[in-house]
């Protein structure tokens, strides 16, 4: 109980600290920090439309966050969420713009194909880890670059539409429907459902338990007769499929076409969300929404105060820096001992 309280308190304090630093920087630059904070709030929640924009922004982050979360639960570092997300979106784009299919059937087909493609792309580092003992981080990072460049080939050559390097948009009938006419679409619902399913799988099924056991202690799991290799491969494929599904849903939900710079940074963002969410799928979703608030809000903040864009990047980095350090600190034995001493003293008094 106390643990949970600390786990929520630490991120809150960290965010506060990051903003204190950010406000000081802004004040030094001659901008009014209160105007800035107010703009941040208005930007994220000022109107129903802004709320819709924020949730739309959160959607891809939720998917890549869940992707990282699932793999980490099995003890493997999938840093390739970005590449898997992109491959999912690329395959989705092919089907949506070239298959001739439109409407619900095309949507379902795109989602399935996107998930499959993401899963296959993630299987590469998985297979190489199991059979060739490769470091999955390196392979997945390298494959991010390959996926990004491949997407480049697709939008500058193969599926190029007209004068600029970008593909045609997905047909109107294949676009995911908006919720309440806002920018947020059913992709957000899909993200939430995915999160719930993962939560259920990890904590309420025996396979999920075994997967977590592999993640906690691979040697012990092997000793207990769990098929460790199979779990590792499975966790890669499923985590890639989550990212691929996200890419597909995001393409049909908000982005509509492939373009230079698409999905840049989503993978690493996802890893940060998962770790701040302490590898809990539902917490990861909340963290992703929080970061979307921060991003949408800080865009308005930047516009309202005129401080350089890098200030909001610095604030976001500090949120991660402080939260991860804080969460690590409260897990330290010394810290736990100090807390215990303090509570003892109180009881003694």
């Amino acid at each position, binding site marked *: 109980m106390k643990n949970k309280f600390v786990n929520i308190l630490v991120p809150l304090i960290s965010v506060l*600290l990051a903003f204190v630093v950010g406000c*000081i920087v802004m004040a030094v630059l001659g901008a009014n920090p209160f105007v800035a904070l107010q703009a941040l709030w208005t930007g994220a929640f000022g109107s129903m439309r802004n709320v819709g924009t924020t949730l739309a922004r959160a959607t891809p982050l939720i998917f890549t966050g869940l992707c990282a979360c699932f793999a980490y639960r099995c003890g493997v570092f999938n840093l390739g969420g970005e590449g898997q997300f992109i491959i999912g979106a690329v395959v989705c784009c092919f089907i949506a713009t070239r298959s001739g299919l439109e409407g619900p059937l095309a949507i379902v087909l795109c989602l399935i194909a996107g998930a499959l493609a993401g899963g296959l792309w993630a299987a590469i580092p998985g297979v190489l880890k199991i059979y060739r003992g490769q470091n999955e981080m390196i392979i997945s990072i390298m494959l991010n670059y390959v996926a990004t460049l491949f997407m480049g080939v697709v939008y500058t050559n193969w599926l190029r539409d007209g004068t600029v390097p970008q593909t045609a948009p997905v047909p109107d009938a294949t676009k995911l429907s908006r919720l309440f006419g806002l920018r947020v679409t059913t992709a957000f619902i899909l993200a939430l459902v995915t999160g719930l399913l993962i939560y259920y799988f990890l904590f309420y099924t025996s396979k999920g338990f075994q997967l977590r056991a592999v993640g906690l202690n691979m040697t012990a799991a092997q000793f207990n007769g769990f098929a460790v290799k199979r779990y590792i491969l499975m966790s890669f494929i499923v985590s890639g499929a989550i990212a691929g599904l996200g890419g597909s849903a995001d393409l049909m939900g908000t982005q509509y076409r492939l373009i230079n710079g698409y999905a840049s940074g989503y993978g690493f963002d996802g890893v940060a969300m998962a770790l701040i969410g302490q590898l809990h799928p539902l917490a990861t979703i909340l963290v992703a929404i929080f970061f979307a608030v921060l991003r*949408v809000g800080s*865009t308005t903040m*930047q516009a309202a105060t005129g*401080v350089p864009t890098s200030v909001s990047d610095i604030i976001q980095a500090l949120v991660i*820096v402080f939260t991860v350090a804080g969460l690590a600190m409260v897990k330290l034995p010394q810290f736990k001992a100090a807390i215990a001493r303090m509570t003892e003293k109180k009881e003694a008094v």
Partner: protein
Amino acid sequence: MKKIFALILTLAMVLSLAACGGGNSGSGTSGDGGSTPPADGSGDGKTYKVAMICDSSVSDGGWGMACYNAMIDAAAKYGWETAYSDSIAQSAYYESIVSFCDLDYDLIYAPGNQYTDAILQAAEEYPDIAFALLNGGADTPAKAANANVTSLLPDAQQVGWIAGILAGLMTETGKVAFIGGMEIDTTKGKYAGFVESAEYIGQQEGKTVEALDVVYSGDFSASDKGIEFAKAMMDQGADVFFGDASAVDSGARQAIDEANAAAGSVKVYDIAQPGDFLGQNECIIGSQVTDNSGLVGLCMEAVENGTFGGETIFGTMQNGVLSAGAVSDLVPADKQEKYQSYLDQVMDGTFMQ
């Protein structure tokens, strides 16, 4: 205790950095548009506001800088306030635009075709705000539901001609080179214009001129790629360079300067764009100049008069948006004369006819 220490450390670092910079340039950030005096004091007392969004930095010494300064110059002329958001990620285009819309900006200025989707979306939601898309598609304004989008389109072929004529006159090896950033149609158009004019000039002057295949750096900030591309292309015999790749161009010029220094004399040349950059590097023999501020100014005028929207404004030599910058002494007087006469042909519409 340890945590406090870490915090103080970070704070001290950020503060000292901010402080040392703050004193240096008071005008570092925008938003201080209030100090811009209304130039002609016309109008009804309303101060109009323009905001620019850009995916590269406005201090990149290349495209971002040129587009930003175009806005600043135009704003100074018409007495507008300015603001900008730069280095924004692709996923934040729409949000950045909408942020300025919510702050009641009168004109949103987006220099690049990549913002088209985001601009059209925002233009639909904010019918009273004017949106100007530099290098936008000719057909984009027609797609805007509220007719509040204008495309500003410098003529890429003429841009290529202005550089290609000079390249054709100046090449000794008969090989000219072009370094592109992204494979966008304006870049392709510039390359095509560059190639056809250089080859044409070669025929006129009784020599063979051919252009190496276009190369693309894939991004606009990799000055090191510019260095390597220029070296590789010089190995292939290229001796006049033109490019459309922002900071990558500066890398190419650096490599050309180094090669010239090693050879002891300036034998390889570069033609700059989009501003007049003569003197920035030794190898620059001339510039193709695009007066984007004129285009932005036209938009401001239209907004003030309530006539904005729904059109594509082309930038050509004829309407003064495109021109040739000053030419270096490295270009012999007779070639300078020829250059001018060919430029006059472009002006008359008789070039390559």
